[in-house]
């Protein structure tokens, strides 16, 4: 089942550019959707499986992006090394922050992560000497994978798709591992989990660090793909969008998160057509989906489908 889902997803991702070569929605929007998949799948480990909210994940996304931007342009580091440095920085900060921040619950945790995200954003805007300030940094060189330069929409589509599939595969494996089971136990009841000998704080820390690493990885790819970074791409609204992707798709489901990421990317892209009505429709849709499908589109719709088929099955049985 799990492998079948993964295979179907991989096949879809591979077939799209073959069926629609040079289609704007596949090559350009597809890259952005792929980056969002990486971010949402990572964040889902924290929100969906460990049951801990983060309203500041754009901060880790930004750390990865700025680390790549600064190290490759100003210090001429090779892009892979810069990416590794970004992962190291984001991972270390997440690890240092995890214990005090994940001690908090519910709305207090939401506040703390939100505050962290805003602080990092303010630093990006204000530390002009490092980050270029509100104007951002341009001229980031293309990603260089051991001599193979990634430039052009189609190469980027390939690289980002591969990266997204890699993160989905990693996430599926983490979820089914000892750590994943520990996380689900913690989400159910932290006390009960501790009673069974699970190191709850340790499990939550692992989820936080892994999701930060995924975000920084996406950030580094984003910086090279755009060749430009500015604080706008890592604002509070981006953090909120990431949470929406996870919840929209359906929490505690890796494919759900991926689905949510693609759905929200397409939605944002599609709403641009409505210009002045964009925000109004966006807000209304969010409310409607959350009110009527609180478990998310992916999980909610598949349940509706199952119920419908059950009804259908019962009726044929009766006959």
């Amino acid at each position, binding site marked *: 089942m799990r492998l079948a889902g993964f295979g179907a997803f991989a096949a879809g991702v591979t077939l799209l550019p073959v069926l629609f070569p040079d289609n704007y929605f596949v090559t350009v929007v597809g890259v952005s959707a792929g980056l969002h998949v990486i971010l949402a799948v990572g964040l889902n480990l924290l929100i969906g499986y460990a049951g801990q909210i983060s309203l500041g994940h754009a901060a880790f996304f930004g750390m990865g992006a700025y680390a790549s931007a600064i190290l490759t342009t100003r210090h001429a580091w090779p892009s892979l090394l810069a990416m590794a440095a970004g992962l190291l920085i984001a991972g270390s900060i997440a690890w240092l922050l995890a214990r005090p921040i994940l001690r908090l619950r519910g709305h207090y945790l939401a*506040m703390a992560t939100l505050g962290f995200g*805003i602080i990092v954003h303010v630093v990006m805007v204000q530390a002009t000497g490092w980050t270029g300030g509100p104007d951002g940094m341009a001229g980031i060189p293309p990603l260089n994978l051991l001599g193979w330069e990634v430039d052009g929409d189609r190469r980027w589509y390939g690289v980002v798709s591969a990266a997204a599939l890699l993160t989905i595969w990693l996430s599926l494996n983490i979820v089914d591992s000892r750590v994943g089971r520990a996380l689900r136990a913690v989400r159910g009841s932290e*006390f009960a989990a501790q009673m069974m000998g699970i190191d709850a704080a340790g499990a939550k820390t692992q989820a936080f660090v892994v999701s930060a690493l995924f975000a920084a990885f996406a950030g580094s790819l984003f910086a090279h793909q755009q060749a430009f970074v500015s604080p706008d791409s890592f604002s509070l609204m981006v953090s909120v969008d990431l949470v929406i992707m996870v919840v929209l798709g359906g929490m505690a489901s890796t494919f759900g998160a991926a689905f949510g990421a693609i759905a929200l990317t397409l939605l944002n892209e599609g709403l641009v057509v409505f210009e002045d009505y964009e925000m*109004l429709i966006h807000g209304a849709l969010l409310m409607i989906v959350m009110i009527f499908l*609180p478990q998310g589109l992916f999980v909610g719709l598949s349940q509706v489908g199952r119920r419908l088929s059950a009804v259908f099955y019962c009726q044929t049985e009766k006959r």
Partner: protein
Amino acid sequence: MPEQLLQFLATGVTVGSIYALVGLGFALIYNASDVVNFAQGEFVMLGAMTTVALLGAGLPLVLAAVVATLLTALVGLLLERFAIEPAAGASVVSTIIITIGAAIFLRGGVLLLWGKGFHALPPFTGDTPIRLGGATLLPQSLWVLGVTALLVALVHAFFNRTLLGKALLACSFNRNAAQLVGINVRVMLRLAYALSAALGALAGILVAPITFTSYEAGVMLGLKGFSAAIVGGIGNPMGAVAGGLLLGVLESLGAGLISSGYKDAIAFLFVLMVLFFEPTGLFGHKTAERV
């Protein structure tokens, strides 16, 4: 130097009063429904923007302010009725997203109606600065302080002296028990949202002559109000007021003495520090988790 400090303090208390009012709105709604309303800042913006529009339509300031406050209260009531009530029993994350959706919706509505421009209200009583010791104070600051003090006293009296206030409080302690003693919980919830929206609108109208307002003005004010409520211990109305004042003063001191660009970072760093050492806020209840 002491004069300068006095100036920062005066500015801080003025801004802090606004945070306190927004925080009070958060606490009201949280108490009644266990929901953190991320559209609280939009109530503040809605109050100010509606007043600006009504003033432009030729209404006198006082009437415009009253109508704008009532209209915002109506929006609060509608939010409860059509977005919160149907989602009863939803998880924390779901309700957060619903209210964020509402916030985006309201921002989009205002953008559509009145555009992206920045607007200011005229000060209530002139703009000749008042000298106070070494500090100068705008007359509008006195209005902010005075009306905030009055509103806080009213809310306090409402909860402690009136039957309606006590009924609302009962809903926050135990909804089922409140229902059993004959309190109409549904009506109480709507009342809480309307009241909270009205408080937000008043905060917006009070501060609009000092800081400009626009369709996006509610975002930061809402977040600061949320911080105030969290620092005070969420669900504790007077804690939210204290939290707001504390946040305003610290932010103003930070902006004056360290760097104005890092003003927001300083405020949120303070919030993080409070949470790291007091995970349920400064005046919050220490609750034990039931297994």
